[in-house]
């Protein structure tokens, strides 16, 4: 998707990272003090979706691969960690690791299949594979079918810290979100990330330079799926619920929307996009089908007139990568 990225491309130079660092510190500070003013559950939901969108953005923004099935990683990790916490009674950190690991494994398999085709076929394949995971979740005995897994105990972190209250859970989610974000940031700026961007800009050229692009794409897919799983596992503990909503294709569409609205290929765009969409859903929740209509309209407007997204536009305005 070369068109959008022309603005983000100069992000490579070293001096530019300072602005990003400042914005990151502001963001971390915001999330650290925000629970004093905003409902903490809402903030935790926001951070889970923000991490989910950042993981998705790693693929679309930096490799140019549009996955239309990222809900499978979010949902599967949610189910696995909810099951582990509730039925096996493991501590929350183990539950989250198990869920994330399963999504990582799923990403190894689905990524291997999906990168066999390019462009729109890639999108259709990921969508179809995710639908398969959806039907699996609907029918498998441990997922609770339409009910999902409810009343998941948050337990005690490392067997010591009680996560039962919002005050106990919040720091954990904050650390996971910021940690995931920093990891993605590190990946993007690593030599590995540079090669990903090269593949995005011109894959045949990257091949001609001797890079095994399929392997790079596969690793990027696994990283993205695993981090999306981390978001899903955390989310299931926050809401103490794993349900079919998180595996459904509408969720895959939502994460695309968050990233598109915030700005594909920008570092902070997915966080902003997630914040806008999650707040919108909160306020429009009573309006039923209108949420879908508004989301569809946002899609249309973004694609037609606003392809850089919110953060992309700001970055373009101040001529600094964000």
């Amino acid at each position, binding site marked *: 998707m070369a068109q959008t990225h022309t603005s983000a491309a100069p992000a490579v130079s070293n001096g530019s990272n300072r602005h990003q660092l400042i914005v990151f510190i502001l963001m971390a500070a915001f999330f650290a003090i925000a629970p004093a003013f905003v409902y903490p559950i809402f903030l935790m939901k926001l951070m889970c979706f923000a991490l989910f969108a950042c993981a998705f953005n790693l693929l679309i923004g930096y490799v140019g691969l*549009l996955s239309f099935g990222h809900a499978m990683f979010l949902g599967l990790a949610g189910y696995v960690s909810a099951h582990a916490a509730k039925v096996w009674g493991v501590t929350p950190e183990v539950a989250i690791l198990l869920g994330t690991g399963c999504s990582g494994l799923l990403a190894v398999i689905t990524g291997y299949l999906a990168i066999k085709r390019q462009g729109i076929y890639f999108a259709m*394949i990921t969508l*179809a594979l995710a639908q398969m995971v959806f039907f699996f979740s609907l029918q498998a005995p441990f997922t609770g079918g339409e009910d999902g897994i409810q009343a998941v105990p948050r337990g005690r972190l490392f067997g010591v810290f009680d996560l039962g209250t919002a005050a106990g859970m919040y720091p954990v989610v904050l650390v996971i979100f910021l940690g995931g974000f920093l990891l993605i940031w590190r990946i993007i700026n690593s030599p590995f990330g540079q090669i990903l961007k090269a593949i995005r800009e011109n894959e045949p050229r990257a091949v001609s330079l001797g890079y095994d692009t399929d392997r790079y794409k596969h690793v990027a897919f696994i990283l993205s799926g695993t981090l999306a799983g981390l978001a899903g596992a955390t989310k299931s503990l926050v809401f103490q619920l794993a349900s079919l909503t998180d595996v459904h294709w509408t969720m895959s569409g939502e994460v695309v929307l968050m990233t598109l609205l915030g700005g594909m290929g920008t570092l902070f765009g997915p966080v902003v996009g997630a914040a806008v969409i999650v707040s919108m859903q909160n306020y429009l929740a009573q309006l039923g*089908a209108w949420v879908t*209509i508004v989301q*569809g309209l946002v899609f249309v407007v973004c*694609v037609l007139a606003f392809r850089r997204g919110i953060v992309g536009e700001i970055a373009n305005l101040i001529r600094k990568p964000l």
Partner: protein
Amino acid sequence: MEIFGVPTQALFGQLLIGLINGSFYALLSLGLAVIFGLLNIINFAHGAQYMMGAFVAYLLLAKLGLSYWWALLLAPIIVGFTGVIIERTMLKPLYKLDHLYGLLLTFGIALVIQGLFRNEYGSSGQPYSVPPQLSGGRHLGFMFLPNYRAWVVFASLVVCLLTWFVIERTKLGAYLRAATENPTLVQAFGINVPRMITLTYGFGVGLAALAGVMAAPIYQVSPQMGADLIIVVFAVVVIGGMGSIMGSIVTGFGLGLIEGLTKVFYPEASNTVIFVIMVIVLLLRPAGLFGTQK
């Protein structure tokens, strides 16, 4: 009478349902392939437009008293016309961009259309009865064949083959195929390629609407009827590859039959069998059964 421990009535009954689903897969994937060939976009709104076809048929009957046969003619034209408007106003500016934007745009359009219909008619289905000329059915000895279902399979097959004939064997089709290969050159020969693109999109959308009208008496007319179907059709398209018209038709009907058989022998997998086949095809023949790797 039994075959492999399954009563023939059940076996052939499911095969018939498979064949009907296959007709819809064929019609929808054919439309997707025609649109993709010329516009290079995947029309994510295809499922929503299929649903619109069914709703137009329902509304024509409920509001204007126009019968199924009128709907069969009018619904594809009406829905195809909305497709023309979408192409002219929204898709056109995207051709010079990455193809993925077309996918994202049509996904948004699908959400809007489905949301609007859900607002108006709720999530539950509206009944649409089989036209009187095609009610009833006949006993074939080994199974009971409802007339309407036989008609759907027959009509879709005719429409599919007609489309194949027009594209592969007529002058119009030759222009179309030439424009798929090299639009600039075809335009240089004095053919109005932008108009051809618009009409092609309208035609593909019309095919989806036609499938919707035919589906209306079989499934209930509901806003979500196309949403899950389109994902299966995407898998069908990945399996067949979009390179060949005949390939889309054969793959559509074939996969419908396989799905029907799965319902008989291993019902738990009937939802996923097409996706499993997609995985196998990707492993063995990544370009699809009839496709060429681009």
